[in-house]
């Protein structure tokens, strides 16, 4: 069967909306367009009803109750609200926040802003496998610590943090625990009760829902978490997030997480199979490949590989009918290679050669076959062009060379 090009294999960045989600959303743009805050007519009631249905669907995904779900514009807003909201509400209690170095910028930059306002932030390091050390976390907690914010799974390398253990430590120490679960929710089981999570961010567009809508779980009891709002106005979402609710978006988010939850056992097994098939296919055909991050504690659909001696952007240019992303500096606006890979201790030379593959619901084995072939061809061709590959094959130790950067 011929594959349709281009192939999308960048499902950590975003996912296509599932047609079943689109179908669920459509009536709420036109016939049922009401404002969920309109309490005095049927248009408003209909909107309110589906919003509450969406809240229940999100709650079910993470084993929460519907009242604990706040709708937002996406996970960046959820992360901002969780961290800034706790910081402001509990600043009398303490001014210390703990996070870790491979967080998404939505968490790191939020923490950096709080530092400007007098908060102290500890950025825990990660080991070579991409995970934090729990003893580091225990040692970092002080009487001033009010929040631990550690992502569930990383967006670049797919590595899953020891969430249940972190939750246990946070509970013991009486510190709130927020997790950015954007990459994990809907992909692997997430349980805020079992894992003692107090705040959790999710986004619709990472789980085959629409862009521009997400949610924040805010624990209501044992312990109750209160948040200062960052967007003020009509007092929607129990005062924590004002703004007219995105009704079609919420319908889409709800439907997307419902599908993800129902299909998770089957889907995660299928994606894991394709991911491992991709990995094995590449490793069987090419030498000098390196996996970035733990292969054990990893999302099933996720693979991050460094193709030594081949610069990432030139590789993307060669496989231009396959959408993936690279940790190479040349693909970023800052000209710095991936800070995530750097934190793992991956050398900058190898960081420049890294490619992230994210397999999704709509990818097929035929597509993965095509990708294996394309990547193998391009890497082989570019290695013929690479002075580093030539030198390495001649036995030159590249780390001992006296390089002359431009």
């Amino acid at each position, binding site marked *: 069967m011929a594959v349709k090009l281009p192939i999308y294999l960048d499902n950590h960045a975003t996912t296509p909306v599932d047609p079943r989600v689109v179908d669920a959303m459509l009536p709420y743009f036109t016939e049922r367009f009401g404002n969920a805050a309109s309490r005095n007519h049927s248009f408003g009631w209909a909107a309110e009803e589906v919003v509450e249905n969406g809240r229940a669907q999100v709650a079910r995904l993470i084993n929460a109750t519907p009242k604990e779900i706040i709708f937002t514009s996406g996970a960046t807003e959820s992360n901002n609200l969780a961290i800034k909201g706790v910081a402001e509400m509990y600043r009398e209690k303490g001014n210390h926040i703990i996070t870790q170095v491979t967080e998404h910028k939505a968490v790191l930059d939020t923490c950096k802003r709080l530092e400007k306002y007098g908060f102290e932030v500890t950025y825990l390091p990660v080991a070579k496998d991409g995970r934090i050390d729990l003893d580091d976390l225990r040692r970092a907690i002080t009487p001033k610590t009010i929040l631990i914010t550690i992502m569930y799974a990383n967006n670049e390398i797919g590595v899953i943090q020891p969430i249940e253990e972190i939750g246990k430590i946070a509970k013991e120490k009486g510190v709130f625990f927020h997790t950015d679960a954007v990459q994990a929710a809907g992909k692997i089981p997430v349980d805020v009760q079992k894992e003692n999570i107090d705040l959790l961010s999710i986004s619709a567009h990472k789980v085959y829902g629409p862009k521009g809508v997400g949610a924040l779980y805010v624990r209501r009891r044992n312990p109750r978490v209160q948040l200062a709002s960052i967007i003020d106005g009509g007092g929607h979402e129990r005062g924590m997030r004002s703004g007219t609710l995105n009704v079609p978006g919420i319908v889409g988010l709800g439907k997307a997480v419902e599908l993800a939850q129902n299909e998770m056992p089957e889907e995660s097994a299928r994606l894991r199979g394709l991911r491992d098939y991709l990995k094995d296919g590449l490793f069987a055909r090419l030498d000098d490949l390196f996996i970035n991050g733990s292969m054990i504690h990893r999302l099933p659909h996720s693979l991050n590989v460094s193709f030594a001696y081949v610069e990432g*952007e*030139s590789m993307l*240019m060669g496989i231009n009918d396959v959408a993936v992303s690279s940790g190479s500096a040349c693909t970023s606006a800052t000209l710095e290679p991936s800070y995530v890979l750097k934190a793992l201790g991956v050398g900058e030379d190898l960081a420049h050669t890294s490619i992230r593959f994210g397999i999704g619901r709509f990818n097929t084995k035929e597509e993965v076959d095509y990708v294996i072939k394309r990547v193998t061809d391009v890497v082989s061709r570019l290695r013929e*062009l690479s*002075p580093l590959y030539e030198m390495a094959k001649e036995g030159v130790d590249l780390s001992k060379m006296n*390089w*002359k950067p*431009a």
Partner: protein
Amino acid sequence: MAYSDKVVDHYNNPRNVGSLSKEDPNVGTGLVGAPECGDVMKLQMRIHPETQVIEEAKFKTFGCGSAIASSSLATEWVKGKTVEEALAIKNTDIVRELSLPPVKIHCSVLAEDAIKAAIGDWKKKAGVEDTAAESTSAGH
């Protein structure tokens, strides 16, 4: 990022890929850049000892498409030129020819450095007095 047609052409059909023997007294080798910075160029030229005409040029490059194109173009340009003419090639000429965006200018700088480094190496080997062969490296 969108590439110019010329960059795409050099990337897909790089000219003069390969290596020349470093043992050859008439071959000058320039190796510039660093793996940590994401680009390394190796440019080699075989230069006629009397006429100082560059008879052959080969390159290998680790780097983005613009780096590959810049070095491929450099080999095309230096071939048939005298050493003096080759040293007159400026990175801005490469930028213009390949329509490189500002973020890719360093690729052209690296190509100019590679030309100068290769000629400098040849001069050292051949015992030619070095006048202007010092690399113009200005830090990364």
